[in-house]
Every structure is written in structure tokens, then in C-alpha cells.
């Protein structure tokens, strides 16, 4: 098995991830007849016997034209694939067990379009795409991400049977791509360990002035900045403007606070679930892992940072 694999690597010049852009030069595009192509050849053979037997001069012409068509199909199929430029595109992080979509850009520098180019990872569903002339086509190639961490999908097969199904042209590429796979969120995790309703201290003091929330009657201790002067101008009693924003809930997710019986992946899985919940509820959250801590924060960027830390834990 090992020998076959290494022979294949040698035959198809596979040497690990390649730098972008990858150009499918003629030396790395392979062509062979398909089953239909072999059947076509067999039909032509039968026809030739018939033409010889019945001395059909025009039959010879027909058969030779069809034989030429087979050769032309070979080159058309080859041409359909050769000189495609391929460069890796975006890869959005996914959770383990989900389908990761590896973005690929296929540049077609030719002034004619290309049709029915299929791409797939080994053993995965193929995406079939047409490439417009002198344009770049982006596709997302799906593959199941099974384990958390950096996921390298391996080689991609590009193949085409266009235009006549008689010939298969294919090529292997291994672009330098990876996808960040977050741990799979635990499906039935305990509720969030809410820390406390935050108090307004230090740098966060300004938050309390952010959003205007209403008016109340003025009290002597209130700042004159917060007096609703417009109301005064309308000859109403002195009112004080009220602001909110300082009462953000906080949650601190601590590795060490989890039950001791829980394994590493189970811990990561639970923390992932909690992070998602905290973000969904608009809380401020922080994360502490052995050897790494992420301070309290909020928003999508904070979530990303925390999930990345979980995904890459221990690596």
C-alpha cells in the first residue's frame, strides 16, 4: 500500500502543498479515454470491419472522420483543463463535524470559456463549474472537517470530460490551504456560569454616558451637564437626562473551573458552547485556558479570538 502511494506521488508529481498560483501546465494534465471512449473505439472497429467487408468507400471516410474526432476530442479535453490557474481563496472557520468550504479561485486567461470542470477532494462530492473567458471563478469546495485545529484538506483533483465524454483529463493540485476548525459545541451543556452584573469601574466608566434612556426630575446632586436644557427652555421643570450602558453582564470561562472528571476535548467542547451562548446573549466574556488567557471583551472579534484559542489548544 505504501509503495503504491509513493509511486502515485512520484507519477503525479505530488510534493506537498504548492505556493499559489498553481498553473496546470501541460506536464501535469493527464488524459486517458473513459469507458465511453473505449466503447467508441470498439464501435469504430466494428464499423471498419463492416466497411471493409462491403467495400464502402464512403464508410471508410466516415470512420476515419470519427477516428479523427476521437483524437480531436482528446485535445479538446486536454485544452479544457490545461493552463487553468488556481489559487486558494477564503476559508471560513467551521466547527468540527461541519462541512468546511475551501475557497478556490480558478483563473481562465484564455479568450474562450471552459466548460464542466469538476473539482473534488479525495472521496468527496465534486463541484462542477464553468469558467468564463478571461475571468476568475470562485468556488467553495466542500469537505468534512472532523478534528479541531488546523485542517489541511490534502490534494484536489480537477477533471473534465468535456466536450465529448470520450476522454477524461485530470490533474492533481495541492494548494497551501488550511482551515481553522473550532471544537464541536457540546449539544447539552450546563447553563452559562454567569459571573456578576458588572460594576462600572476604571476604563468602563464612560459607558454610562453612552445611550440616552430617559428623563427624571432633577436632584441637586446631578451634574449640570445632564440637565435637559431644552426642556427648561420650554418652561418645564428642571429634568435630568439619564444614560445607560454600564450594566453589561460578564462571564468568565475558566478551564480550571470545569469539573475535574471532564476530558480535554469535552472541556473544549463545553467552553465552545458557552462562548457561543455568551456571544448570542450579548455578554462580555473572557477565557482562561492553561497557559493562555483572553481578557474580557465583547463582539465578533472577541468570539473569534476565543474560539481560535480553543481550536488550537494544545497544539
Amino acid at each position: 500500500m505504501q509503495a503504491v502511494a509513493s509511486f502515485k506521488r512520484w507519477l503525479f508529481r505530488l510534493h506537498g502543498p504548492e505556493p499559489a498560483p498553481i498553473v496546470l501546465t501541460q506536464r501535469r494534465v493527464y488524459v486517458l479515454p473513459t469507458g465511453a471512449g473505449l466503447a467508441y473505439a470498439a464501435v469504430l472497429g466494428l464499423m471498419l470491419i463492416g466497411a471493409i467487408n462491403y467495400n464502402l468507400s464512403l464508410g471508410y471516410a466516415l470512420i476515419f472522420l470519427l477516428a479523427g474526432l476521437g483524437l480531436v476530442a482528446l485535445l479538446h479535453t486536454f485544452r479544457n483543463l490545461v493552463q487553468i490557474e488556481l489559487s486558494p481563496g477564503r476559508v471560513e472557520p467551521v466547527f468540527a463535524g461541519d462541512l468546511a468550504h475551501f475557497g478556490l479561485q480558478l483563473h481562465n486567461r484564455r479568450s474562450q470559456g471552459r466548460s464542466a470542470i469538476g473539482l473534488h477532494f479525495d472521496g468527496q462530492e465534486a463541484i462542477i463549474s464553468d469558467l468564463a473567458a478571461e475571468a476568475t471563478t470562485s468556488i467553495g469546495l466542500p469537505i468534512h472537517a472532523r478534528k479541531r485545529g488546523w485542517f489541511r484538506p490534502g490534494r484536489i483533483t480537477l477533471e473534465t470530460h468535456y466536450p465529448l465524454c470520450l476522454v477524461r483529463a485530470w490533474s492533481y493540485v495541492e494548494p497551501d490551504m488550511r482551515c481553522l476548525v473550532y471544537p464541536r459545541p457540546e449539544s447539552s451543556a450546563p447553563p452559562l456560569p454567569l459571573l456578576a452584573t458588572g460594576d462600572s469601574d476604571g476604563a468602563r466608566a464612560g459607558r454610562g454616558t453612552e445611550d440616552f434612556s430617559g428623563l427624571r426630575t432633577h436632584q441637586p446632586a446631578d451634574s449640570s451637564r445632564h440637565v435637559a436644557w431644552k426642556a427648561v427652555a420650554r418652561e418645564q421643570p428642571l429634568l435630568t437626562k439619564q444614560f445607560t450602558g454600564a450594566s453589561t453582564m460578564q462571564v468568565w470561562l475558566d478551564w480550571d473551573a470545569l469539573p475535574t472528571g471532564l476530558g480535554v476535548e469535552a472541556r473544549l467542547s463545553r467552553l465552545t458552547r458557552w462562548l457561543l451562548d455568551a456571544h448570542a446573549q450579548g455578554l462580555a466574556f473572557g477565557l482562561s485556558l492553561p497557559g493562555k488567557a483572553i481578557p474580557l471583551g465583547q463582539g465578533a472579534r472577541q468570539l473569534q479570538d476565543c474560539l481560535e484559542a480553543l481550536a488550537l489548544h494544545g497544539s
Partner: protein
Amino acid sequence: MAARRKSLPLARNQELWLLACAVLTLAPDVEHAPTWLAAVAGMALAWRATIWWRRAALPPRWILSFLVVAGSAGVFLTYRQFFGKDPGIALLILFLVLKLLEMGRVRDGLAVVFLCYFLLLTHFLNAQGLDVAGFTLAALVAITAALASLANAGLSATANLRLSALMLAQAAPFMLVLFLLFPRVQGPLWGMPIDAYSGMSGLSDTMSPGSISNLSLSGEIAFRAKFEGELPPKHMLYWRGPVLGFYDGSTWRAGPRQAKVSLPDTAPGPAFRYSVTLEPHNKPWLFVLEMPGSLPPGAILSHEYQVLSKTPVRSRIRYELKSYPELVQGIDEAAASIDSHLRLPANNPRTRALAGQWRRESGDGEAVVHRMLDHIRQERFFYTLTPPLLGENSIDQFLFETRRGFCEHFASAFVFAMRAAGVPARVVTGYQGGERNPVDGYLIVRQSDAHAWAEVWLEGRGWLRIDPTAAVAPNRIEAGLASAVPVGEPLPFIVRADLSWLRQMRFRWEAVTNTWNQWVLGYDPQRQREVLSRLGLREPDWKAMTAIMAVLCGLLLLGLTAWALHKRARHDPTLGAWNRLSRKLARVGLARKDWEGPEDYARRVALARPELGHGLAAIAALYIDLRYGRLSGTEARRKLRRLVADLNIPSRR
């Protein structure tokens, strides 16, 4: 993956393509297939079309199985066998329509396409004319487009057709090379079924009243002749065919095959050299201008001076000959042969009586011949394509009652009368005349030129040709059938003389057909050797031909590969000149980086090679104006091209 793609269900437009292909392919078979099969195929196609239209389900498997069995049984009952040309075609048709009914996946679509390709070949068994070739080419484009649609259902119909036409055009050079050089094998590879050559028409070796006039209704070409030098005068154009020496009272027949004779060593008078391209007629005789002075290879000469090939002529053949119109044969005819040419059945008493009277009155044979010809000339005889039907004493009836007849009546009556008068005589059938095609100079001889005449043997003078038809209708000999028969008779459309533009077109068409026949259909092992030796290939054997064929195909493939790899140059000539500059400078290691702007590039080059700075600044300035400024016009572009071309890059050392 490949397998998975083949088992994809067919899209609706793919189904439509395949259906259209099948209809197109099967259309010419309607004429030749048995009626029941044509009906079944038509119904199956209609059924499939309805399924497509209504988006209904395909018929269940048991119905299809039943149809396969029933259809095969029908074929067997029709032909009593499964092997051979016609049952084979019938089975192919059956499979095609049933495959269409079963067709649900791409794999089935491929099978349909391959069957269509195969069926195209079978059409050639019936005809291989230019029209058939044109139809086949059109069908080929359509079927290939269907195949292309199987590979990519998203392509529009016109795109499919364009692709298919392009690919076939690219395949054409391969076809030419293979056609010329593929080592030809003379078929058949195995014994032919008897049915292979049915339906060929031509003269037979019997003649009865009506047999030649029937043939005359056909405008089909019997053969073509090409003379070296001048065409012989019309009255010499007697193409000798079967010689009929036996009469049973109603039908003239050829005598039993007798020893062949050799050609005379010397011959008098002028000679004509010519070649004949004979259409297949499934009979052994070859038509030659009277009288033959040489024989085509492999042919023999019978003692009746008839040229015979060893096998029936089943494909178009071409032979070269020399003829001497003044050659007379049979001066030393054997007594037994002379006797046999005097035998008559015991009917037609009035003719016998008249002939006996002539013989008694004039004494010698030649005088009798003239009495008979005078008789035909002076009595009210008519030359017509539609003579009345004759009874038992047909010659008496013709000579004394109806007096209306075609050449076979005249020839038959003449020979009968001669024999009755004691002059040895026989009927010769063949063709008389022909029409010169001014386009290519070929003489075209049609079935409508079929003719029968007589030969009489006179002591010391041998066999002499006497054409009694010439006595009643001299025009038949000098100007052809059309001018000899009365107006209104059912002549073949093709020989009517009154439509000159039509004739002109016909001449052109026939010249093209002739070229087609000579060079495409007649391209056999012999012709292949001829062509190749003319191309300078001496003694071409199959090894040399295969080698050359492989080399040429390889070259064609290389050319196509170059095309496949060719990156179309950008259309913008300004950019073209700019890229050329970069390529030029690449030789000294100063290629433009593809993200480098023109000013930066010019500056970098000037820094590296100060002597180029001035020239490059001018080029960059012009390029900037053309590409990024408002300047346009061919003049400026030409100037840029010139500047780039003129830029002289001295190598450093």
C-alpha cells in the same frame, strides 16, 4: 467519479438532442426497412416524444423486454436469419428505438449516440452519392452536438452545434490522411450474403419485346467514358454488350459460354483510346466500343467478341481500352457457329415467307439485307417507346400489323428475317451514343441509351453490324433518344433536350458526381497505389503507408496541441507592443514585472542601462498616452510598434 457522472439522469435538453438525432438517423431507413419495422420505429419515437413532452415516466422494463423479443422475432420471420446486411440493419434500428424508450441516464444517451453513428454507416449500403455524403455530414454534426450536450447540459443548442462543427472540421485533416494512406483491403472479408447486390439495374442477357424500352425509361448512368483526344462520331458509338444468338420464339438469349478467343494481332483503321468507369450492374460483361483491340486486365474475350470480367461487376470499376471501329471479326467463323446462327423456332410464318421470297429474288445475302432495310424504311414503321403488346407470332404481328416498335422490335425482326432468308445473324445489345459533358469532357452513357442492333455474317466479309433502328429513326443514332421518339412520350426527365439550363446544371452536377465516383468511391487498393506513386512514393506497401500515416497524424496532433496550448494574444495592439518591449528587454534580464507601471519600468531600465534610457522614455511616454491618456489612432499605435521594433539593445559584452 467518472462512473458517478455517467449515471447522472439526463436533462430535458439532452433527451431532446438524442431524440432529434435518432429521428435524423432513422429518416433514410424508412425507404429500405421493412414496413412493419418502420411503423414500429415511428410509433416508438412518437411514444418517446410524448413521454418527453408530458414529462411522464419511462415504460416499465417488462414492456421493453417484450418488445425486444417480439421485434427480434419479427426480424427473424422477415429475413429467416439474423446475419447479413438487412437483418443486421433491422436489429440496429430496433435496438436504437428501444434504447430511446429505456433512455434515462447519461450512459444510455452515450449508447444512443454510438448506435446512431453505426446506423449512419449502414446507409452507405444503399447509396454512396454526394447527396448521401452531405446528409451524413449534417447528421454527423447533429449527433456530435448531442454527444457534446451529454458532457455539458448547460450549453445552448447553437454553442453545441458550433463546437461539433469545429471539432469535425479539425478532424477532417485526419480523415484525409487516413483515407489516402490507410492500407486498403479489397473486401469482402467473408462470404457475402446473396442479398448484398440486389437492386442494381442494367442490361440483362435476355431480350424480349419491352425489355430495352423499359430500361430506356431510366436516366441512371450506366457508365462514363473518357477518350484520349477527339470523341468518335456519334454513329460509331456502339457500346457492345451481351450478344444474343438464340431465339425461342419470344425471347432472345445469349449462347452458352464458349471458348475465349484472343485478339487479332493487327487491326486496320484508326484506333480510339479511352477509359470506362462502369457502374456496378451485378453482371460480368464490360461495355466496350466496337470493336475492342485490347482487353482490361483480368477480362476475357468471348468468341462473340464480348468482353467479360471474371466476376460480376459489383462495385464501380474503371478500365482502359483501345478500340478499332473498322475491325471486322469472324471471317473464319466455324461452320457449327454459322449453323447455330441460322436456327429459328417454327413460328412467324408470314415473315418466313417474305424472307424466303427475298432470298429467292435477290440471291445473295447482302441483297437480302438491303431488301429488309428498304422494307423498314419504305413501309410505315414507327419508332416509339410505347409499342402495342404483341401476341404469339410477335414478329409477324410487328412487321405486318402494328409496325410500331422500339429498337428491340426492329433488331429482333431483322435478325429473324435474316435467319429465315438463310443469312446468319444475331442480336447485339448494348448502348448507343452517349452525351458529352462539356464540364469535364466525359461521355456519359445512361440506361436510356440502351440499344439493340443486329449483326449478319456474310461469306468472306465476317460479321457486319446492321442497325435497323437507324433505318426507321436516323435521329436515334445521330442525336439520341430524345430527338427520335415522338413528342409526348414518357422520356426520363434527365434526357429531355428542351430545357437547356437544366441540361447545363445537370452537366455540372454529373461532372461533380463523376469526380466523386472516381476519387472517393472508386478509391480502391489499385487507385491508392496509383495516387501514392504519383505522389512520389514508389512501391508503396502497407508498412510504408502505415509509417507515413502515423507520421502525418502525429504532425496533425502536434499542430492541434500547439493550438490547444496557444494563449490567444491580447487584442489590444498597444499592450501587444508594450509586452513585446518587455520580452525584448527580458533578454538582458530587464523583463517588466507584471505589476510594474510604465514610468517605474522606464526608470528602472534607464538606471540599469543608461544608454537605453532615452529610447525607453520615448516609448513609455507614447505608451502612456495611448493606454492611459486620450490618444488613440492607428498612426500612433504603428509608431509605438516601430519604436519598440527599432529599439536596439546592445548586449553588455
